[in-house]
């Protein structure tokens, strides 16, 4: 049971979005993917999930090239929750979660009671069983996200990939979703925006910068002031978490690096001006 990328490139047209990323997901871990906007997190997630084939290098599941595994088999092993997926269809929570059984069904193997049981278990896992008959459009953002996760769980995957699962949620639901995911008996890869959340929940963190994998390691190794300054452009102090040993907390400083960012910006502007004149 392994999922890895070897020297993966991914291009859109001639533009390289991801270059030379090598990463191996360890069984059972919670791997966080961090990086500033546009660093290639979402693209990396879609390559990892097998939705987009890499332009160069290879994506391997148990050592086998993902391209050769086939969509259906892949969907039975990898569940993927996208960043934004909404619908105007009037469907119930149960119907939405039932979609997760798609890779197991065909004309010859129709819906069975086992599928009902899997869907119920998935609803239980995200604590949404009591809302199973609610209509999708009446759900709150956090509830929708739980249903999405339940749909992915109904695929009975070994790997659960989540692209910024806490977007647009209030803080209680953000923590709720991450705690829920952490409890699940699957290997999780999640792209996260909030570095403190990454510090709190992840076993390992992979840091992307400009389409490259900058570093990978434990939260304490990755979340150091130098990285926060160089990659994210913020000044911060990192304190050890006294309640949870081995974890850390990040305290940002207002104004501290603003000057850096501003001067970077001014430099950039000057550069473009020079380019234009040239």
């Amino acid at each position, binding site marked *: 049971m392994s999922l890895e990328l070897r020297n993966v490139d991914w291009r859109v047209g001639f533009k390289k979005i991801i270059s030379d990323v090598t990463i191996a997901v360890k069984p059972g871990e919670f791997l966080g993917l961090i990086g500033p906007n546009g660093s290639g997190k979402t693209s990396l997630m*879609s390559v990892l*999930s*097998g*939705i987009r084939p890499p332009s160069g290098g290879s994506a391997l599941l148990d050592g086998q090239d993902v391209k050769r595994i086939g*969509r*259906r*088999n*892949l*969907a*039975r092993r*990898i*569940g*993927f929750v*996208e960043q934004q*997926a*909404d*619908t*105007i*269809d*009037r*469907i119930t929570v149960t*119907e*939405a979660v039932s*979609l*997760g059984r*798609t*890779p197991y*069904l*065909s*004309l010859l193997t129709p819906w*069975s*009671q086992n599928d009902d049981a899997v869907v119920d278990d998935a609803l239980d896992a995200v604590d949404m069983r009591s809302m199973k008959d609610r*209509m999708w459009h009446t759900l709150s953002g956090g509830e929708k996200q739980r249903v*999405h996760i339940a749909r992915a769980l109904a*695929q009975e995957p070994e790997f659960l990939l989540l692209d910024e699962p806490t977007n647009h949620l209030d803080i209680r639901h953000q923590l709720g979703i991450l705690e829920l995911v952490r409890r699940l008996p699957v290997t999780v890869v999640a792209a996260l925006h909030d570095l403190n959340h990454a510090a709190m929940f992840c076993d390992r963190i992979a840091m992307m910068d400009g389409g490259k994998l900058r570093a990978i390691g434990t939260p304490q190794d990755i979340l150091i002031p130098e990285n926060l300054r160089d990659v994210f452009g913020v000044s911060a102090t990192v304190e050890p978490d006294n309640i949870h040993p081995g974890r850390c907390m990040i305290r940002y400083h207002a104004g501290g690096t603003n000057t850096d960012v501003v001067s970077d910006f001014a430099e950039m502007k000057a550069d473009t001006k020079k380019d234009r004149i040239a």
Partner: protein
Amino acid sequence: MIGLLSLAFTNRISATLVALMLLCVTLAFAASVGETAIPMQTVINTIANHVWNAGHEVDVIDAGIVWNYRLSRAVVAASCGASLAVAGAVLQGLLRNALADPYLLGISAGASTGAVSVAILGLGAGVLGLSVGAFIGSLVAFAFVALLSLQAGRGTGAIILAGVAGSQLFNAMTSFIVTKSASAEEARGIMFWLLGNLSGVRWPDVWLALPVAIVGLVICFGYSRALDAFTFGRDSAASLGVPVRRAYVVLIGCAALMTAVMVSIVGSIGFVGLVIPHAARFFVGTRHSALLPVSALIGALFLVCADVFSRMIVPGQVLPIGVITALIGAPAFALILCHGRVLR
């Protein structure tokens, strides 16, 4: 468990039987009403005579009207309504757009260009009929739209925009040909054809329309689970194991062919492909295993009835069926819309 399964199964079978019976009754009704009302008994006897040589005694003229004119016409109307409604439901589900309809793919515009090319410009030197011209035109337009959307980058938005561009282009060509070369008489004839016309329909048309409708429905039905998987968009479908590209090619190709065949037989009847799927959703929800057959049924019933109306509403004159579908359909749909909102 087996009991439950068989119950669901028998439910399905009995629902299908009820639907088929409803369809048969409507067809018989359509064959009995018209300028000369023919008793239902005569209709049933005539059908029995033709289908299994029952040897009932019926008036020869009545039998001719029922079998050769009204029944063939009603069956084509049913096939056409079912095809357009299913094509509309498939495209709305696949492209995630409530305004998608079968004519989105440029098919009706291309068909009209093909038809006027044959009828007015005399393309094909008398060998090609209006229908063949319309069919070729619709395929050319669809090919244009498909290539354009591939070039533009394969997204659902690209297909819709390419369809709009293609439709506008081919409609403009039609208008150009009509205004430049057609006499007033020809222009009126073309206009009538464009709005849909079942007058010339006979049994050979049935043997084309009916199989296309049935095969098309079966293929689309086979993809109903895949269509469900598109609920949360294309990437979501891909992550659920659906071969997205193949589904696109098969389903869009299927919708396009069904539409092209129907349009070339009866002209471009509007409203059905856009609105019937929405009406069906109000009754059975959005899951395609129920939505597609119910859309087909409602579409078939609706178009058969609309055709009856088009023959009856102005005595001594047949109105284009496209006028009727919109005139009756729009208020009916408005009712469903308002009623549906109250219900939920």
